[in-house]
């Protein structure tokens, strides 16, 4: 159980780690990194489920009968691009927040907002 589903255990551990970082840290860049780890765990989940025991890469070759499913990999290529775009946009926002507030700590930003209200 533990060994045969090794990938999925890793997925769960990474997912919870990422999620916990997003919730618990007040530094905006750390939050984004947590988000990135969270997304990466889902990528691993997709790729693991495409693997067929004993299968090779899906290239037509004589003597090879079992292939791994290539579709999840393709889907995840798209999802990785989306993930990069998200993190890039997030970092760009952090730069702008730093310019506007002079800090990237969540609690300090909230303090400044409360004062200006």
């Amino acid at each position: 159980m533990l060994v045969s589903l090794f990938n999925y255990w890793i997925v769960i551990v990474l997912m919870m780690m990422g999620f916990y970082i997003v919730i618990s840290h007040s530094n905006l860049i750390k939050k984004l990194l947590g988000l990135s780890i969270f997304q990466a765990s889902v990528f691993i989940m997709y790729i693991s489920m495409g693997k067929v025991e004993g299968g090779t890469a899906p290239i037509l070759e004589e003597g090879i009968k079992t292939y791994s499913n290539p579709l999840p990999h393709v889907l995840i290529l798209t999802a990785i691009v989306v993930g990069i775009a998200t993190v890039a946009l997030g970092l760009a926002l952090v730069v702008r927040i730093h310019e506007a507030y002079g800090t990237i700590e969540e609690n300090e930003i909230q303090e400044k907002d409360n004062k200006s209200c």
Partner: protein
Amino acid sequence: MLAHAPALTVLVPLLAAPLSLVFVKSRHCWIFCLLVTCASLVLSSLMLGQILDTGTIIYTMGGWPAPWGIEYRVDLLNGFVLLLVSLLGFIVMMAADSSLEKEIDTDKRKFFYSSYLLCLTGMLGITATGDAFNVFVFLEISSLSTYTLIAMGKDRKALWASYQYLIMGTIGATFILIGIGLMYAMTGTLNMHDLSIRLPEVENTRTVFTAFAFFMVGVCLKLALFPLHLWLPNAYTYAPSIVSALIAATATKVAVYVMLRFVFTIFGIEFSFEHMPLQEVLIALGVAGVLTSSIIAIYQTNLKRLAAYSSVAQVGYMIIGFAIGNVTGLTATILHLFNHALMKGALFLAMAGIMYRLGHVEIKNLQGLGRTMPLTMAAFVVGGLSLIGVPLTVGFVSKWYLVLGIIEQGWWLLAVLVLFGSLLALIYIWRVIEIAYFSPPNASTSQVSEAPAMILIPTWILVLGNIYFGIDTDLTVGITSLAAQSLFGVSP
């Protein structure tokens, strides 16, 4: 041309988005974008006409037959939502040029238009596609451009609002991705039609339960169901007025559509409502959302934030209508998608007009605005009445069907709670009316004149829509009840 309409509605704004960066003058860019959104509108209305004539349109991308290729499957439900999104996209775009004058620097405007078109592409794509993974991709296209649009707000709080939305939105989208992945693991297909056939065979497995749970939480984050709505008030408040109008009128509606599509077409009504406690959970959250957000809305000092909380409450009504689980309730939900887009569009465009003249929307400083900006405030009042659900406005029509649906189930207490929610809406709208009409103008409001014509015209188009569809309900109720019946599998 019409044969390719499903793809073109999405492709036209997608291709136009980078093209709009070519223009030097922002006004030329605006005219170009207006033409593009108009083209989308024409295409989606032609499609809806065709669906009413000949039934569901199936379009295979690149000629690859489903389930191998991606297919666009447009039936009454998404044809109607496509029309709604492209219509609001066009009308809100009309007001963009004037409203942006005061809110976004000249050199940034073409980027604004480009993101606007991308956002529209994403929402139209989510609605048109018949492929589950495609939904995720378009969802991210629309979300990423929405984050950009919100961050363009003048106040620095817009940046913070956008960042918060980015975090919450990405978590929501990733949950949806997990849900779709688990469904794929069980069935080996991503095509929605194919999924709906294969999923029932493996329905009673823990994987499908998990997929359903992840998917639902993800979508509820996107549609801002209470208590997952925390990103919404800030995002609506600090975004540029045009952006608030666009996302308030369309974004949550598209997410509600996704929920309807997955629950009814893919998972099936028996699975969702009998194997899963969806009904109980959604009704409880819907009612809590309506009451809590309406009460919070009463205490707001900022007009945009008031409208944002009222949006959360209105999403609650849509969810209740869908969760009571009969055809009348579902009709009310689909109807309210359209009607709420009309009223919130009108309200937020009226606020864009106030923002243009006053530079703020603080309620206590709107004294006497009813005298100096009569047309804008009148638009606000009609939109507000519609929100409350006064007869002869669209709000009444959808609430009527909602209450009918609830009574059909015999849940009187729920009907009373829904009507009590309308009463709360009356209070928060009245607060604004009282200050704007019954107190004398102050130093700043006595100086202002009426909002510019290019903001007033689209606002009043929506206001007249509010009244017209409130009186002549044949078209909207006809289409939505057919769509609801087909989702329930009852042939009309």
